[in-house]
């Protein structure tokens, strides 16, 4: 799994791809923590390239959300695929991790 980092209007965008599972989740969570520690607490995770997420992946996103909020920021997700949206809805986690259709929509008006 690759993590590509970019910045857009003062928001850090982390783009991931492949399977977001117990193998890759710790790396993404660590990257979110580093980003927040570096002073950027507004983060969008771009899930366009993610075809599968499991509970460890969800755990990384929730953990990242908590970290960002503790630093008075937030974490949003963008471009989630069908499987990701299904799992978010099932667990009701879409209530706190609102899926935005695109990175632009997630960054817009922040």
């Amino acid at each position, binding site marked *: 799994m690759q993590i590509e980092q970019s910045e857009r209007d003062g928001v850090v965008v982390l783009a991931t791809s492949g399977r977001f599972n*117990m193998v890759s989740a710790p790396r993404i969570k660590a990257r979110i923590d580093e980003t927040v520690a570096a002073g950027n607490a507004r983060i969008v995770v771009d899930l366009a390239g993610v075809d599968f997420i499991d*509970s460890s992946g969800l755990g990384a996103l929730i953990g990242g959300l908590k970290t960002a909020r503790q630093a008075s920021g937030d974490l949003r997700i963008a471009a989630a695929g069908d499987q990701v949206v299904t799992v978010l809805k*099932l667990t*009701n986690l879409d*209530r706190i991790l609102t899926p935005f259709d695109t990175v632009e929509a997630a960054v817009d008006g922040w």
Partner: protein
Amino acid sequence: MPGLQIEDEDERLAAIRALNLFNTAPEERFDRVVRLAQHIFNVPYVAINLVGEHEHFTKAAAGDLFGAPMSTLPREESLCSVAIESDRTLEITDIRSDERFTDHPLRDNAELGYYAGAPLRTPGGQRVGSLCLIDNDSRRALSVGEQAMLRDLASWVERELATGADLEQGSEVQRRLLPRSIPDLPGWEVAGRCVQAGAVGGDFYDWLVLERSGNVQVALADVMGKGLQAALLAAGVRAILRGTSPHNSLAASIRRVADDMVGDLDELGSFVTFFAARFRPEDGAVEYVDAGHGLAFIIGPDREVHLESEGLPIGALPDEQWEIHEDRVGPGEALVIVSDGFLDVHGDHGTVMDVIQEALGRTEGADALAAELARGALGKATTDDVTVVVVRRSAA
């Protein structure tokens, strides 16, 4: 042969039994070590032999010179049985000229010239077997570096033996934490299945009769992730739920689980999806609470209900409130809760409901339904745990 008295043989045999590896099938975690050793030392045969009371058992073997995997050899013919008498590697460079083995039955075996066996120890220090190299002809002694490498490979096997034993024990403990006694409720049956993807996992189910009200509580929880961390957290959730449920309402019980687990879940970056229901056997009235689990259904000949809710998983946000919902299990209907392993297999909850409906028609009783559902999920490729709880009310 001098110095062959083994002290504490009983303890050694107990350690062997605790491994639970005698007469078990080959495993890749051991096979890869013997393959590697065969390559490194360029010998025709390498084996991992476990030395029991009367015979040694070949757990892994590379090459067909001697015993195949799962074969046994009487101890009096086993050189590994000799190798476990010391912590040091036993090396026999030429068995036919070695005075220590003048009377050994294998001395005249034309296929055996050279033997090296590194003893395999448990964490408790019991020598339970040996990683052995065999060559047809006599051979020069291993260099110091080769000796160290053989010892390294033996340590690798020892680590596999230890981990396997711990996990096997953990797996057994986890099985015992599932409810075994079936509540005696005329007109009702309760059953469950839990098959962890690994030796241990984060799924569990439970049920208990609440003595004060006579109502019955069933629950299914799925701790994020896999393996030991998930299993330990699951045991915590189960214990808190068991402790609080007989004395508290369903709402107060989930609150208690969430409040008591929040520190551990935060610390480990984990969360738990959880569903619990209480039903009244007299009329089938059900109250339930769902913390982000989302896979509970009431299915009967006349209706299929997905018991939805808005609740987040336990541990997702510290101040989450969970609402209690109500429904009813009518005659001929079943309350079925499954883990998300079923979603991996069947795609969406609509398909899961269809699968349950079909299984309901094909089976009688709760146990048959639970077994059928678990079998259907396990038949497909899933890397997740597969857990199901069924409360089934008879038609009449």
